[in-house]
């Protein structure tokens, strides 16, 4: 027989299947992930899941990361937290106490997913590993996100973003020829892990819908970054060649006697930089290069390349000096143009050329405004009338963008509502709080 709580759960699941973007409505997620790993729960929340962030009583460590709203270090004002914590409610729970774990187990009975990013083995030591959770709630899906996976020689290595992207091969492809390899200064390692964990979680969820069986999703952030390297591993495997960061251009590995070709791709313009390049060989590239050089010709630049047959330009045989010479002619021209002029021309004439945008350019981009990428959420707790623009889910479903359903929670903001649901009275909650359980 259904108890009242699971009846409501069932009702929610059956009622709300009228939209693909709320396919997870009625499913509950307990999320203990940190930092970029929170992309997993954020994604499930976008699809309508009831995501409950379970933080330690002092708040998640993600709250101590900058940037901060108005540069005020405060766990309730971390912009990092506000972004990653979207689409969730939040409770506090001390999992190091038996009482806290007991409450957690009771919550697990109401949940369909558990997400965590602790070091491998931590949850099992608390008696909350996958096998324990599956006993409490058969069919549960547990998603564990770690730098290198739950087992293996690096499973207990300490990693940060830069260490992670180094060991995943991402740094070696970024950099200047004469300096140390680089990372993207906005951390990607854990975010990619969290994002791809959402894929694994949904694959497991689909299987559960067919069979009723849950499973453990063991996400490696290292592998997630490896999957972003394009053709780096394949180039090693087939050509025994390593692609390495070599300044602002494109590298085409070639055997001797030519050696690698370096095609310059970043050019200064009047008010910043643009990215484009002169390439031939394949259809899209030829048309783009031709349109770009035509534009320069019309303005009296690059005239020596007028009527050049770009389809005959073959990166496999092109001499480096010739490539550099063409790039320097292009540079002369682009210096006379603005970012906006370049983009306008590129869109109209199908040139593969864009301005190197900064965060302001992106927030003010008319294309993103037209498509409603940014959703403004009110933040009365930060100041009267305050609101912030958040990038929404990047896929439209039947013309609708899945909504950001709520702003990131404050510390313990939903303790009362969620613990109350378990039958914990306010008096009991007061005691739990006094003893540091919540």
């Amino acid at each position: 027989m259904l108890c009242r709580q699971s009846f409501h759960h069932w009702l929610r699941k059956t009622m709300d299947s009228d939209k693909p973007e709320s396919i997870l409505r009625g499913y509950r997620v307990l999320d203990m992930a940190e930092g970029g790993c929170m992309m997993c729960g954020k994604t499930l929340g976008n699809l309508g899941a009831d995501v409950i962030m379970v933080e330690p009583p002092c708040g998640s460590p993600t709250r101590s990361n900058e940037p901060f709203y108005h540069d005020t270090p405060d766990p309730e004002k971390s912009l990092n937290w506000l972004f990653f914590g979207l689409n969730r409610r939040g409770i506090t729970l001390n999992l190091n106490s038996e009482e806290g774990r007991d409450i957690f187990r009771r919550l697990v009975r109401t949940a369909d997913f558990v997400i965590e990013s602790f070091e491998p083995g931590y949850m099992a030591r608390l008696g909350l590993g996958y096998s324990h959770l599956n006993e409490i709630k058969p069919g549960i899906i547990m998603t564990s996100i770690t730098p290198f996976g739950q087992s293996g020689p690096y499973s207990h290595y300490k990693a940060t973003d830069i260490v992670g992207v180094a060991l995943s091969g991402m740094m070696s492809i970024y950099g200047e020829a004469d300096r140390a390899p680089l990372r993207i200064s906005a951390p990607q390692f854990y975010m990619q892990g969290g994002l791809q964990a959402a894929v694994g979680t949904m694959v497991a969820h689909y299987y559960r819908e067919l069979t009723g069986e849950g499973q453990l999703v063991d996400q490696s952030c290292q592998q997630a970054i490896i999957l972003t390297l394009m053709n780096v591993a394949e180039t090693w495997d087939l050509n025994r060649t390593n692609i390495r960061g070599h300044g602002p251009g494109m590298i085409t590995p070639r055997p001797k006697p030519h050696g690698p070709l370096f095609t310059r791709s970043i050019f200064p313009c009047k008010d910043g930089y643009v990215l484009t390049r002169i390439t031939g060989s394949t259809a899209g590239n030829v048309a783009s290069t031709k349109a770009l050089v035509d534009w320069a010709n019309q303005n009296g630049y690059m005239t020596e390349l007028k009527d050049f047959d770009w389809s005959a330009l073959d990166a496999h045989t092109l001499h480096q000096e010739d490539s550099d010479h063409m790039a320097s002619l292009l540079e002369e021209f682009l210096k006379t143009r603005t970012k906006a002029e370049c983009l306008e021309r590129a869109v109209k004439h199908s040139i593969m050329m864009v301005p190197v945008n900064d965060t302001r350019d992106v927030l003010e981009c008319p294309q993103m405004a037209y498509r409603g990428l940014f959703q403004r959420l009110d933040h009365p707790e930060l100041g009267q009338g305050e609101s912030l623009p958040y990038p929404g889910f990047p896929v439209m479903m039947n013309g609708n963008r899945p909504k950001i359903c709520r702003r990131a929670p404050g510390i313990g903001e939903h303790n009362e509502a969620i613990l109350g649901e378990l039958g914990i009275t306010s008096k009991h909650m007061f005691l739990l709080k006094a003893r540091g359980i919540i």
Partner: protein
Amino acid sequence: MAKAVFQGIKVCDFAWIAMGPQVARELALHGATAIRVESHRKLDGLRTSGPFKDFRPGIDRTGFYSAFNTQKYGISLDYSRPRGQEVARRLVQWADIVTDSMTPGTLAKFGLDYESVARLKPDIIYFSTSQMGKSGPYGQFGSFGDVASAYCGFSQILGYPDRTPLRLHNAYTDFTAPWPLIVSVISALLYRRKTGKGVYLEQSQIESGIGMLGPALLDYAANGRISGRIGNQDPYMCPHNSYPCRGEYRWIAIAIGNDEEWCSLCEVMGRPEWRQDSRFSTFMSRKENEAELDGLIAHWTRDYPSEQLMAMLQAAGVPSGTVHDGEGIVNDPQVKHRQAFRWLNHSVIGRMLYNTPSYALSKTPPEIWKAAPCLGEDNELVYKDMLGYSDDDICSMLVDGTITTEGDLPGTRGRPPQ
């Protein structure tokens, strides 16, 4: 052995180049039947891009194409011709999912856009993914992922403060976009299971990249601060950089997040006195003297192989990692332990590595057995067994060029070497 997750799900994969085909690859690795539809007359750009086996160009010799088409059946079909469109219509009626990653409007010319396909098969799940998205003032813009990555803001924050922004070799947005799209396709499959209705999914790949810069965007919105190039520096960690090691282009990344890790690093470096040195004893002083400190650490790391340093430093609890290149990730012991790469036998290339999903599933590990197809490799199987064409039909489609062959290749480029 558990059943494959997407067994019985059929995908008609019109998507091309790097990003779009990854979606059908993921589904195929978990058991879906995916047919990659291509033409010799308008080649997938990756078939003419390296790495080529033995550096010899050829449409069936490239690892670049292979990487994103694991476990798919490959057919050649010219759907720019009326008879080809007839075949394509049969194909989309066979399919549960149709994929499109061409510049917006391309497939509409051939009557293969969502509206046309949905008329033939109302419960179809169809996605269109493009750089800027299908609508809006820049909706017709087509390009590659490295271009899109500059537009999103990645190039602006990759590089040294005294140098230009950098191009992202790995066309990064091509690898931020697949994941939310796969999640959406699975959502659509679940929705169809519940309601019997199809779903149209539409994606801007640039939007997926912008979503990976969330905190930096909020920093501008709330504080007016525009992120710039800062090399490898970090606001909370110092030292925080990659340092040269023994050998050619060998480096190690080291990230010190607190005084305890700093003290451990000093111990391993054999410089315990630096723990009390006023230049370095606190985070603030280290940050102030970061350039000098980086120089001193580089002086020390230079004499050691990177892997040895990593083992020493990790044993002392110092976050550190070898800066792997392609060779490094393929031979990395952790990557091997996870079987991140599998070696499959491609009909022309021979044994080659293939990626696997980055997550391990405890009950339904993907069964990976089929290398990427040569162009048209599975024509007979698909046209005959899956779509029900007779030998006569197939013959006549070969004769009239509906099914394309090597003779249809434009010029000599891309032609397999003799």
